[in-house]
């Protein structure tokens, strides 16, 4: 008796299903990554950064025009960076997501260009003896970093960035004596205010 062979060929939907499964997995991964960056910004970290900003402003104001003023603010920027990075990593750990995921890297990369511009402009402005232009420049560039880094984050983050940018613009044209007060409002007040909102609504 002749052996029976199936006349029908394998269903073409099998490889299609395989491709769809791959596509579904990648869709889930992308959605999770976007959703993670959405609330990756640490609220309590922002509050702590704000407190350091207020302390720095009250100290630096008494040493206006000296090198100690510049050292105080640069040192505070370093401390704030450490607080921000540390609390962001802690929040990611609590959520069970890797800190340097695609979204984490995107966040850091968005901050990097304005930060580099800030460093260069600081050197140039100090050399030119126009230290009074630094508060406006710092506020403006920090705001730019927050807006671009937080573009896909909760609404409070880009909104905070815009507030920093507006304050920076005011500082650039305000009398030199207002610099520390405006930075106290921005690096202190905005960080604390928006930090509290993010912490209360978006898991710390």
């Amino acid at each position, binding site marked *: 008796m002749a*052996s029976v062979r199936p006349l029908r060929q394998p269903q073409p939907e099998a*490889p299609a*299903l395989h491709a769809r499964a791959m596509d*579904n997995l990648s869709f889930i991964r992308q*959605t999770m990554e976007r959703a993670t960056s959405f609330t990756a910004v640490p609220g309590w970290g922002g509050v702590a950064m704000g407190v350091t900003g207020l302390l720095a402003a009250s100290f630096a104001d008494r040493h206006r025009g000296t090198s100690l003023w510049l050292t105080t603010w640069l040192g505070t920027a370093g401390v704030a960076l450490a607080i921000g990075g540390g609390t962001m990593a802690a929040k990611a750990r609590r959520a069970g997501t890797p800190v340097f995921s695609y979204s984490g890297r995107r966040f850091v990369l968005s901050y990097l260009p304005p930060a580099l511009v800030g460093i260069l402009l600081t050197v140039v402005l100090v050399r030119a003896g126009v230290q009074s232009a630094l508060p406006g420049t710092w506020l403006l560039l920090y705001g730019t970093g927050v807006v671009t880094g937080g573009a896909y984050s909760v609404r409070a983050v880009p909104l905070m960035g815009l507030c920093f940018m507006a304050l920076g613009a005011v500082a650039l044209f305000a009398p030199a004596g207002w610099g520390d007060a405006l930075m106290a409002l921005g690096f202190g007040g905005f960080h604390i205010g928006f930090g509290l909102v993010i912490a209360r609504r978006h898991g710390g």
Partner: protein
Amino acid sequence: MAEPHAADPGPVAAARVVRQEALELDRLIHERMRLAIVSALAVNESLTFNELKRLLETTDGNLSVHARKLEEARYITCKKSFEGRLPRTEYRLSPAGRQALERYLDHMEALIRTMRDR
């Protein structure tokens, strides 16, 4: 007489397994928008209606229809409150929803494995 290809399941049998797997899929979260809602809530303690809408770039109507289906299946929980005068709807993934997502992920991996091992 022996069945032809009895020892080797071959491409036809593999395709049948894959089709069977597909039939057993959790249709509820297989739909793209519902899969996106569940995936976003899996990495967040909670998200509000407006946050989900913005994150998933969808409309009020579309989001509320799909969220209600997930809610009816008890995959997500919904808490309504007021923030001042504005209503606030907050969604969370339930343990059943998390389990459904894990099952779905296992399913997708099994589909890929089946085709790779052919």
